[in-house]
């Protein structure tokens, strides 16, 4: 059964959770002026990748990445999927750790980090345990509950904007595209990815219309622009670059007299955190699915040890610096998951269709 709406809401929710926390900081750090150039670049970059990925998948009739690899035999599948599994596990660890830190910085300053992490991981793995259906249905609910709040905050975040900060619009340095090779920009690009991989994992359990997903992707462009430009227009680049979470900091400056709540940014962050929880649930679910290729047991049986392992490793990370190092080590696997997998899908897809053509 086609469930395009649900797929789109998971797609958007996952990205929203990723965009508003670390992305603006990385872009602002990576480029001095004309931030729209790198933003649009990364947007188009992912558009191409997602198109390639979905095109490749479309050659196979409702098969997911794992099943496609399995057609090539079990050893090949394990070799191809192993880096992906490493990627997913490490992304889960980094994400859990990073967002627990964010929660602690923003609202639970006196709570120990392991408690925050435990809660976050427990909820996510419980959702993952309930299965794909649960994840996707929850996403629709979250979109309904979260959209009004998110839109309200996004609209009111324009309160302290000074449009003069938009200038200079274009700069020679940016046009030379040297920013592509700065570590900050690389990180921003990579932190954005990972939100689309699930598109290749959910068939045949859930099917969708790929053209609609591609259209929904365009909603992300204004979101990306807002997440970076609101801090810049409010603070100016010089100041915005000093914040670790620029958008969150900007949301803190919103003042609305008639509202009885002093910190409306809270609601925004709670919404985003719930988005992230769902994204993490999906990550866990994908990881469990891959592990099952090698260890054929039930989905639920895998999740418990997986959760414990991820929690233990996240707890072993002592500081923020280590998280960043982890992020760097992870780069090869990220590139594999984000570039090689979609490309591989397209190649395999074309070969598959040729073979099928020869047979008939």
């Amino acid at each position, binding site marked *: 059964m086609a469930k395009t709406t649900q797929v789109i809401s998971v797609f958007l929710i996952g990205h929203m959770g990723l965009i508003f926390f670390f992305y603006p900081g990385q872009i602002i750090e990576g480029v001095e002026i004309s931030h729209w150039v790198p933003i649009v670049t990364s947007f188009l970059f992912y558009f191409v990748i997602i198109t390639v990925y979905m095109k490749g998948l479309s050659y196979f009739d409702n098969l997911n990445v794992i099943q496609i690899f399995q057609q090539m035999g079990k050893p090949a599948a394990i070799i191809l999927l192993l880096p992906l599994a490493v990627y997913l596990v490490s992304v889960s660890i980094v994400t859990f750790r990073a967002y627990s830190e964010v929660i602690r*910085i*923003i609202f639970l300053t006196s709570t120990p980090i392991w408690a925050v992490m435990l809660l976050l991981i427990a909820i996510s793995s419980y959702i993952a345990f309930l299965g794909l259906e649960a994840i996707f249905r929850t996403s629709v609910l979250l979109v309904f509950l979260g959209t009004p709040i998110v839109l309200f905050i996004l609209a009111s975040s324009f309160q302290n904007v000074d449009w*003069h900060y*938009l200038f*200079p619009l274009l700069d020679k340095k940016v046009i030379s595209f040297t920013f592509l090779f700065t570590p900050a920009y690389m990180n921003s690009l990579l932190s954005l990815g990972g939100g689309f991989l699930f598109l290749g994992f959910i068939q045949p359990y859930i099917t969708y219309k790929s053209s609609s997903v591609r259209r929904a992707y365009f909603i992300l462009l204004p979101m990306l622009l807002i997440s970076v430009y609101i801090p810049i227009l409010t603070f*100016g680049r*010089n100041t915005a670059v000093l914040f670790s979470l620029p958008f969150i900091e900007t949301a*803190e400056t919103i*003042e609305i*007299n008639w509202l009885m709540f002093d910190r409306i940014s809270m609601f925004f962050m709670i919404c985003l955190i719930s988005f992230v929880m769902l994204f993490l649930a999906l990550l866990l679910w994908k990881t469990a699915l891959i592990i099952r290729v090698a260890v054929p047991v039930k989905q639920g049986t895998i999740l418990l040890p997986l959760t414990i392992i991820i929690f233990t490793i996240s707890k072993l990370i002592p500081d923020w610096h280590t998280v960043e190092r982890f992020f760097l080590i992870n780069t090869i696997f990220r590139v594999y998951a984000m570039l090689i997998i979609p490309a591989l899908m397209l190649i395999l897809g074309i070969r598959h269709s040729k073979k099928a053509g020869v047979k008939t």
Partner: protein
Amino acid sequence: MSIIGLRVLPVIGITAILLTLTGCWDNKDINHRSLPIVMGISKLDDHYHIVLQIPEPSQQQGTEFRLVKASGATINEIVDRIGANMETQMDLLHLKVILIDKAYAESGLNDAISAFLRSHDISPKTMAVICDEPIDQFFDNIQQYSKNNGTLIQDFFRANAGWSPQVATSRIWELFRSIHSYTRDEAIPIIKSGKGTIVETRGSAIIRNGKMVGRMTPDETLMTNIFSGMDVKGKIEVMNSATVQIVNNRITNRSSIVDGRPLIKSKITLSVALLEKKGQPTQDEIKKELQLTLTERFNHVLTMMKEEEADILGLGQLFRNKLSRDELQKWRTNYLPNLKAEIHFEVFIENEGDLKMDA
């Protein structure tokens, strides 16, 4: 065991487990928290001195205030020490006003402002105000008035309460921005305790890169508020021939670079209502006089800006599309002193009140 027993037992079991839960983590009830609303900071020989004004609800007579004072090497250390000495948890989240001693402001606020933004204990929306008399004296003087009005100083600056157009407003985050900005400086209000009225406005301080470098009168502060696009309606202008009240204001700026010198052309449209007049001036005479008064005042602000190399009007912002980033970096030193401004006040007398013009 019966089926009912199988169902009921787990429920009882779960309920029993629930009883062992202790409630929220590290939660402190509101009666165990102290929520200071005003913090006074002064600095003497590398030692900060902090005064916190903490409201305490009492059953007899509304809100009582407690003043807690301490000194130490850093602000966070002092707050921590005060918290340790108090029977309640110190919570700065609802701090509304930070009152800064003038001498301290003159020596530079950068460290304190960054500390506030870094620690996240204090909302970036907190207002920064400079105190024109010793902090302790200020608190002692307002103590007797603030018995029944806990949010007194805060109300003084709130647009929907006691704020007036000639008073500057400045949040901690705006101050932080100005410290790191090439093209923007801030005006912070200056107050002292008054006689009769509790707080007396004393104009505003010019803060350049986090340091107080000069001061402006309330009338000059009005100029900065007009330039930042604020609605200054309600301000009353007194002249020789008449007294008028501003009812509407609008500003349009055009910036250009002529022979390497920045040129700014501003048009300020003011609609005023006539309140009083002396003798029989015509409408044109009133307009002319108002234009003259305001232009003179603006020129004075501009001269001051050039002297102090402090861009309180944020004029450099208007050149962001004219100058490159490297040039903007030198805005305060190279461009601002050479700035040429052509300012034009367009005045409309919207109404003459309930009497006719020549009445």
